[in-house]
Structures are given as C-alpha cells and as structure tokens.
C-alpha cells in the first residue's frame, strides 16, 4: 500500500466523526432532493394519467372529417400516432329516437383512451362492443356473448335517411363510458363498435384523433390550416392544460416545480458546503504539522482530495439509493392506503441533472478547499477565508454594548456566515410554508368540492351578474325529473332585472351608487332593479333561505302563502376605482385600504316594495333580509343586489309567461344508480348544451384533491425532518464557532444566562427576518403568477396601484390563521432545536 493510501486510511479513521456527519448530510440531501422531486413528478404524472383515462390521450381531433384528411395527417411530421373512428349511422333507442352512433375504430384509436371493462373489440362482422351505459339504456346486461338486436339508421351525405337496418350482434366487449365525457363540442362519437364490413352502408364521416410528437405539442395550432373546411378541429384541453387559453395551471405547476427544485438544490448544497468547511477546519492542524515535517503542498492536497473523493462518492451513491428507497417506500405506502393506484414516475433526465448539479457543485467546493491548501504558507494556518475575513465598519460610534448591539456587530462582521446561516433558515421556511400551504389549498379545495357543489348536474349560471340566458320549459324539467337515476331537481325561475321603488329610496346611498355603477352595466338602465327568484313549495328549496335570514323572520306558512318575500342585500365595498365589490366576489377589483362598506339601510322589515313586472306594478312585503350567506353551498351563490326570493305563485303574478320556464336547475342523482346511464339520458335533453356534468368533475376533483393533499403532506413531513436536521447542524455550527468569543465574554464577567440569551436572540432575530422575507417571496411569487391576469390593470392604472392591489388582495385573502400556525410552529421548532447545542455552554470557563 502506498504512502497516500496509508495516510488516507488513517485520516478517515481519525476524522471519522466529521466524515460520518458529512456522509449523513449528503445522504439526507440526496434523499431530500430525490424524494421530493420524485413525489412531485409522480403527482403530476398521476394527475395527467387520470385526465387521459377520463378525457382521452389524444392531443387533437378533427370531427366530421373524411379519409383523405386522415391520410394527410398520418403523413404529417408532427403526428406521432393517429387513429380514426368511422361513423356509419345511428342506433335507435326504445323510443325510436337516435340513441348513439354506430361505427368502427382502428387499433390506434383503441389505444387513445377507449377502455374495455370486459371482453374485446369486435373482430368479426357479427360482433359488437358497446358503451356500458348504452347497453343499460337498451335494456341489456353486460354479459358477453349475448345477442344484441339493433335498429340502425344510416344517412346519405345530405343528411336524409337512406336505410334502416335491423341486425343482431353478439356482444364481444363492454366499454367504459366515454362519449359524454370527451371533448366533442357537440360532435358525435361512436358508442356501438363494429367492424368496417359489418354494415352495408357507406361511412358518413370520420372522426380523426392524433397524438402529437412531444416536440410539436405546442405547435398544434399549425394543423388548423391543414384541417380548414375539412372538419371541426379541436385541441384536447381537458387532458392537456397547455392548450387552455392562459395555461395558468401549467404555468403554476412549472413555477412551483422550479421553486421547489431551486430551494432543494440550494439548501442541499449549502448544507454540504457547511460540513466541508468544518472538515477543512479540523484538518488544519494536521496540515500545519505535515508542512513542518516537510510534506509539500501537492502531497497534502492529493491526500485531502483522496479522502474527500472516497467519502463523497460513497455518500452520494448511498444517498441516491436511499433517496430512491424512501420515494419508493412512500409510494407503496400510498398505494396500500389509497384504493386506486397512482403512478410512480422517475424523470431520469431531471434527476440525473439535479444530482449532477449538486455533485458538481459539491466537488467544486471540494476542489476549492484543496486549492486553499495550495495557498497555505510554509508555517501557519490555511487561510480559512470565512473565518479570517471579517467585515469591519469604520468610524463606528461608541455605544452601550447591549445584547442587541452585540448581535448586530457580530453578524455584520461575519457577513458571509450570517448570510449562509440566514439563507438556510429562509430556504427551509419557504419550502415548509409552500408545501404546507399547498397541502392546505388542496385540502380546502377538496372540502369545497365535497361541500359546496353538491349537485351532480347544473343548468344555467346562477352566479352571474347578467340576466339569465338559459330558459328551460317546464315540460323539459319534468323530463329531467323522470330520467333514470335522478333523485331530485331544484328548479329556479329567475326574472330579468325589474325596476323597483320603495319609500325612502331617495335617501339610499346603496341604491344611488348601484344605479350608476352596477345596474347601468348589467341591467342596461340606471334605475334600481331587482331580480326575482321563484322557488317551489318543496321545503328542500325554500328552508335554506328562511334559515339564512339575518334580519326579520319569515315563517314557512307566510312564505308559501306569498305574503312575504326574502330580500338579499349583500354588503358592497366601494373601491379606489369606484367599482363596487361584494364581500363574496372581490377578486377582480382593487381594494381601497379605506374602503367604505355600503349597506342598504332604508329598507326595513315589514316595508313594502313596488315592483314593475310584466303584468304591471305589484306590491310585495319584505319579511326577511339576508346580508350575507353564512353557509356556502349551491343555494348560496346568489350575487345580484335586491334579489327577491319568493314562492313560484307570486312569481307568476309578476312574470307573464305563456309557458313556464326555469332559468336555473340543480340536479341531484341517486347515489346508487348507474350514473353513466343517467349521463346519457341527460344528454338527450334539448337544452343539453347548458347542462354541466358536475358529478364527473366533482369526482375527478375530489379524488385528485385527496391524492394531492396526501402527497403534499408526505412531502411536508419529509421537509420537517430535513429542516430539523439542517437547523440542528446550523445551530451546532453557530455554537461551536462562537464558543471562543463567548468563553471570553464569560471570563470578562458575563454570566452564562446572558450568553445563552445572546445566542437565542441571534437565532430569533435571524428567524424572524427570514420569515418576513419568506412572506415577501411568497407574495412576489403570487404576483408573478397573476401578472397576466392583471397586466391590463398594470397598463391602465400604473405600477403603484398594481402593487397596492396585489398587497391588499393577497394579504387580505390569504388564510392568515393557517399561515400563522405554520409560522409559529416553525419558530417554535427552531427555538426548540436551538436549545440542544446549548449544553456546550455548560463548559464555559473550564
């Protein structure tokens, strides 16, 4: 064994304590980096896969097209994979109305999201695979091999019926429902799959679907020219957020990830750098001795470098393995507890890049340490730059050296170390708050999905300030009530804006302001207008509003007898730019710090209001007033001021309808019914384009929110552990580096308690400053995220107003109680950890 190896072996033993610390630190840094990155990537992939499973994995579609377009797209350089669905006709339902399209699909199409629940796609002309909901609709079970009798209509190119065919198929496969979920914009998808030669008719049209090459995903719009006049071109923004108009989710995900990666990398590197510095300090003495004994700088450098390489390589190898293990274990744990699997995804390129960056920087530090040895004088110590380089302020006035002043002077003199120490606190705080806040937001979203949007389908937009655009006839509403799987329908009648007057109106500041700033815009006239909502006699519809009354009281009896109405008068806030915002809907306006709350106080309980409807003016009595809804759910999303909630019979007295119409519906499905069949039935309603399927979105969102919350919490827990370790090391280093100075202070008569207070004051001060800067960083991040939304605001109102707006908006709407708890917990945790190294101060004076 040569000289170097002997000495290296001896030194590894001699400094095993500090090398072990370095070893552990690197493993933790790798674990931290790898597990958080893998979890984050897995989460993103899982979400993306969930969307692909639901909405299909295709990027673009051209509906109502033909085979020539299919061939053109197949040869296009941006297209990775292409599939087509050929529609031959429609299958007639039991009522002889067209139920679903019949056609074929090629193999590629089958891989784009068409999921078989059982069986296979048809291979023979007498075989058929059907969406499960359509089987139910036609009265068939899901048993494979049974005979399915179908009546099929096919049309010629002009849309006139050509043939009606009756045919019997053997059921070869059952598909998961997809045709009511994918993005179609009213175009038709095949629900009954047969072979191309199964029907003696010509194809009506082709629906072509394409998966783009990753490199050209963003260039999907270039295909529009090719498909012009050859079909309806659609981008799948249900699956791919990049195709949404602002891609806020994509931007947010990218920035979140970037922030996470930056903080993880910087924290890890600083942590390791800290340990390397300590190692060099420890070696200093032996280097001096070796120099005195005749070792050259080159020999010492090689020795130290060899030691470092062995330790670093071993540590990184162990760290990578451990990091992967932790991530994989976490994944298995999640799979064990969650009913459905989620994807474990490793972006090899990203991880290699990240780890390479960390390894590269660490080895760079290692080499720099070795370079320092090269600059070592013949006698004397290595210039440990950070230690010897103090920053001295000239001309400082003599002032009492209180603890506060001492801390300021010491921190200022050891600027570099202070910055490193500070950045570690700042970094860990930022990551901790961000991850916990992320978890909190996801959890909040999960709860809101669960609680607020209780309905499964929704017709019309009740939360709009504009007059209703949707009107469904009573007969259609009745049809919906009778649809399979529908449990209950809450139907609202809603008038346009109707002028009202009452005694005392002239004195109403609320009315005066709304006339010019609200009604002029939304009602088209500058009068005071009311919106009348008519609700049914069902207690499920009206009881909520009776319970929400803030002033007065209306009994059910009085409400149903039309004697009294409930008035909704939300408090508004006047803004800097003279806009009115309600306490509920304040997102898009500027908060004025001295904002004035304006309430309607000229209308009292028992007052009469004159309202001019279609049938002339009628007088109604105010029985109750709602200022703001306490319970948030689907029924509380009224937003218009002077909303009058009354019984349908009273509504009929106001509005002259030849045919009763309903403007908003909240539709509830039976939890035990086959919801996919219900989806199909709902889709047949005439006004179906205004019916939103909240159930799918709700289920999707609920599941995602739950997964996200769990993963975020796991990430947060890992971060807490890492934080504890980083901070412990931080404080230990601080105590050790300040030990000599504190020893002198003790010798000069400073008692141990005051020395401890000096140390803790420094800890607290740095933590508080780091926390404040952390908040500013979050605030800045939010401002950047929303900068597109408010760029017009920026242009029209100037930069000061923009920042003032951001300040007021986020600091008024962030959940300060939650953030406060996290912050106080973080401070308490740091102080708790800070106490541990204090045992060293027991030896002061010895």
């Amino acid at each position, binding site marked *: 064994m040569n000289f170097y190896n002997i000495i290296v072996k001896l030194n590894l033993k001699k400094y095993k304590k500090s090398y072990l610390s370095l070893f552990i630190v690197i493993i933790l840094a790798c674990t931290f980096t790898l597990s958080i990155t893998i979890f984050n990537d897995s989460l993103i992939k899982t979400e993306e896969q969930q969307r692909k499973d639901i909405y299909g994995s295709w990027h673009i579609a051209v509906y109502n097209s033909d085979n020539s377009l299919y061939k053109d797209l197949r040869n296009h350089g941006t297209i990775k994979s292409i599939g087509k669905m050929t529609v031959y006709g429609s299958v007639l339902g039991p009522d002889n109305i067209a139920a679903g399209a019949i056609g074929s699909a090629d193999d590629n199409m089958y891989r784009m999201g068409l999921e078989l629940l059982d069986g296979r796609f048809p291979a023979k002309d007498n075989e058929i695979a059907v969406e499960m909901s359509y089987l139910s609709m036609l009265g068939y079970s899901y048993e494979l091999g049974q005979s399915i009798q179908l009546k099929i209509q096919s049309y010629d190119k002009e849309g006139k019926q050509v043939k009606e065919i009756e045919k019997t198929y053997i059921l070869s496969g059952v598909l998961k429902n997809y045709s009511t979920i994918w993005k179609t914009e009213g175009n038709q998808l095949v629900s009954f799959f047969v072979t191309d030669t199964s029907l003696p008719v010509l194809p009506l049209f082709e629906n072509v679907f394409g998966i783009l090459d990753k490199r050209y995903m963003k260039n999907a719009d270039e295909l529009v020219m090719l498909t012009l006049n050859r079909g309806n071109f659609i981008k799948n923004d249900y699956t791919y957020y990049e195709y949404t108009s602002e891609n806020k989710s994509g931007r947010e995900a990218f920035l979140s990830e970037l922030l996470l990666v930056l903080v993880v990398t910087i924290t890890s590197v600083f942590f390791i750098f800290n340990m390397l510095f300590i190692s060099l300090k420890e070696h200093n003495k032996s280097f001096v001795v070796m120099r005195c004994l005749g070792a050259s700088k080159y020999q010492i450098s090689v020795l130290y470098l060899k030691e470092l390489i062995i330790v670093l390589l071993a540590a990184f190898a162990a760290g990578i393995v451990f990091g992967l293990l932790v991530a994989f274990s976490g994944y298995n744990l999640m799979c064990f507890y969650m009913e459905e699997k989620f994807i474990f995804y490793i972006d090899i390129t990203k991880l290699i890049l990240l780890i390479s960056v960390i390894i590269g920087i660490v080895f760079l530090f290692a080499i720099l340490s070795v370079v320092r040895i090269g600059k070592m004088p013949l006698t004397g110590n290595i210039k440990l730059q950070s230690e010897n380089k*103090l920053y*001295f302020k*000239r*001309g*400082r006035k*003599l002032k*009492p*050296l*209180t603890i506060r002043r001492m801390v300021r*002077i*010491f921190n200022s*003199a*050891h600027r570099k170390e202070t910055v490193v120490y500070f950045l570690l606190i700042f970094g860990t705080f930022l990551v901790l708050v961000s991850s916990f806040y992320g978890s909190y937001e996801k959890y909040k979203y999960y709860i809101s999905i669960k609680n607020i949007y209780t309905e499964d389908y929704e017709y019309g937009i009740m939360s709009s300030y504009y007059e209703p655009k949707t009107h469904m006839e009573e007969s259609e509403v009745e049809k919906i009530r009778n649809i399979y799987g529908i449990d209950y329908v809450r139907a609202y009648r809603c008038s346009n804006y109707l002028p009202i007057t009452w005694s005392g109106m002239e004195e109403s500041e609320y009315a005066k302001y709304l006339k010019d700033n609200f009604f002029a815009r939304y009602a088209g006239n500058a009068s005071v207008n009311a919106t009348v909502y008519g609700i049914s006699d069902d207690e499920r519809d009206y009881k909520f509003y009776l319970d929400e009354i803030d002033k007065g009281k209306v009994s059910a009896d009085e409400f149903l007898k039309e004697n009294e109405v409930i008035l909704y008068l939300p408090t508004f806030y006047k803004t800097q730019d003279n806009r009115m915002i309600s306490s509920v809907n304040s997102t898009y306006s500027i908060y004025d710090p001295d904002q004035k709350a304006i309430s309607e106080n000229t209308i009292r309980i028992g007052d009469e209001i004159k309202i001019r409807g279609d049938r002339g003016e009628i007088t109604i009595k105010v029985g109750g007033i709602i200022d703001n809804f306490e319970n948030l759910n689907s029924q509380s999303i009224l937003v218009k001021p002077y909303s009058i909630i009354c019984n349908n019979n009273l509504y009929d007295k106001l509005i002259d309808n030849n045919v009763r119409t309903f403007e908003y519906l909240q539709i509830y499905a039976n939890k035990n019914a086959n919801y996919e069949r219900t989806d199909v039935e709902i889709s047949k309603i005439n006004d179906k384009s205004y019916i939103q399927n909240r159930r799918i979105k709700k289920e999707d969102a609920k599941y995602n929110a739950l997964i996200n919350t769990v993963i975020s919490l796991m990430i947060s827990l890992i971060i807490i552990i890492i934080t504890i370790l980083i901070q412990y090391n931080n404080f230990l280093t601080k105590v050790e580096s300040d030990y000599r*100075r504190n020893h*002198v*202070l003790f*010798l*000069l*008569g*400073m*008692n*141990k*308690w*005051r020395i401890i207070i000096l140390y803790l004051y420094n800890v607290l001060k740095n933590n508080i400053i780091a926390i404040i800067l952390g908040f500013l960083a979050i605030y800045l991040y939010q401002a950047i995220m929303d900068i597109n939304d408010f760029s017009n605001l920026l242009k029209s109102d100037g930069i000061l107003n923009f920042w003032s707006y951001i300040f007021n908006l986020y600091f008024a709407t962030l959940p300060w109680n939650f953030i406060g708890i996290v912050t106080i917990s973080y401070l308490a945790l740091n102080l708790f950890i800070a106490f541990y190294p204090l045992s060293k101060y027991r030896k002061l*004076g*010895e």
Partner: protein
Amino acid sequence: MKLLNIENVGKTFGKGSGLITALEGVNLSIEKGSFTTIIGRSGSGKSTLLNIAGGLLPPDRGKVFLEDIDLYGLKDNALSRLRRKRIGIVFQAFNLIPEFTVIENICLPSYLDQSKPNLKFIDEILELIEMSDKKGKYPYELSGGEQQRTALARALSTKPDLLLADEPTGNLDLKSGEQVLDAIQYCYHIFNQTTLLVTHNLEISRQSKRVITLQDGKIVSDSIGEMI
C-alpha cells in the same frame, strides 16, 4: 490589609490513573496594594492558582476570600458581578473580541455590568500605555504588544480591586513583553493596583516585591523583597 485570602486550596484534574494534582494545600494571602509574582515551571499549577483566585475555577478543597467574601460561596450571578466589578484579568492569549474596536473592548466589562464606562479614566489609562491614538482600531490591526496593552486597559477600566495577569508576556517577543510589563508596573505605581502576576520568566519575577514559587502544585518559597 489582606485583600485576597486563599486557604488550603487543592485542585485535581482527570480520573483514575489519569488523575493530576494541580494544586495541593495552597495557603496564600495577598495584601492590598501589593505586587506579587508567582513563578514556577510549566505544569506547576500557576495558571490553576490564578484561575481559582480570579473566581474562574472552583477548587476541589479549600476556600478563597476576596476581603471577607467567600468567592465560591456565591451564586453564579453574584460571582459574575463580583468578577466584573472587582477583579481584572489579563490573559496570555489577549482574548480580545476581534469584532470590537480597541475602545469597545476596553469598555466591554462596564457594558457587561450595564454601567456607563468611565471614559475619562479610560483615556488616562490609554495615555499611560501609549494607546490613545489606536482607539478606533480593530485587534487585527494591532501588534501583539498593543493587543496585550489593550487587554491590560480593559482589565483596569473598571478600577478593580485586584488585577490578575496570567503569563501576560507569554505570547510576545522580548521587546513587546517588556513594554507590557512596563505598562503593568507603571499602572501599579500610578493606581496602587493590587497585582498578582503569574510567569515562568525569572527575570520578570526579579522586578517584583514578592515572589512566590510553585512546584508540583505546592508553594515552595515565598520571598519578599524590594520592587525594582
């Protein structure tokens, strides 16, 4: 009048086979206004004795009285207060705070005591030790001798009853050492400062009125002569 009384003090370090007796049965009285030197070879227990005398190291046996106050009978706070007000120490390693200027280092004991430093008196000391023009300098800008003189000024700044100097010239070259010693003696003459100086340098001891010799933790001689 006796200022410092050390009664039957003993101190050991280590355990078992590694047990070292640093001091054994040491009895010593220091008169107020006296200049005493303690000499002995390396390892004779001089610094241990000085630390015990300065309230920095509790003895295993015996007592130490400053006037009639039992130093080690006091609680930590009270002892720290006493050390700040009544005992000044000059260390071999200077022990200046590198982040503070000369004047801040000198005023530090007063600030630790949360009292206002006597700047006039401090200026006087600085004048005496020829450091008046270096008030705003930092320790790294001073020579060894200047740093030690600053440490001396710091020790004297609170007008302590007792000045202890532990090998004050140990880290200095000959010339600087002489300057520091001269400064200590000068201050002794001007302020009639009770001084206890520890050294292994015989030459220095010859300049002292009273010389106590320590060997293997015991006082082997205690001679009183004239100060040179």
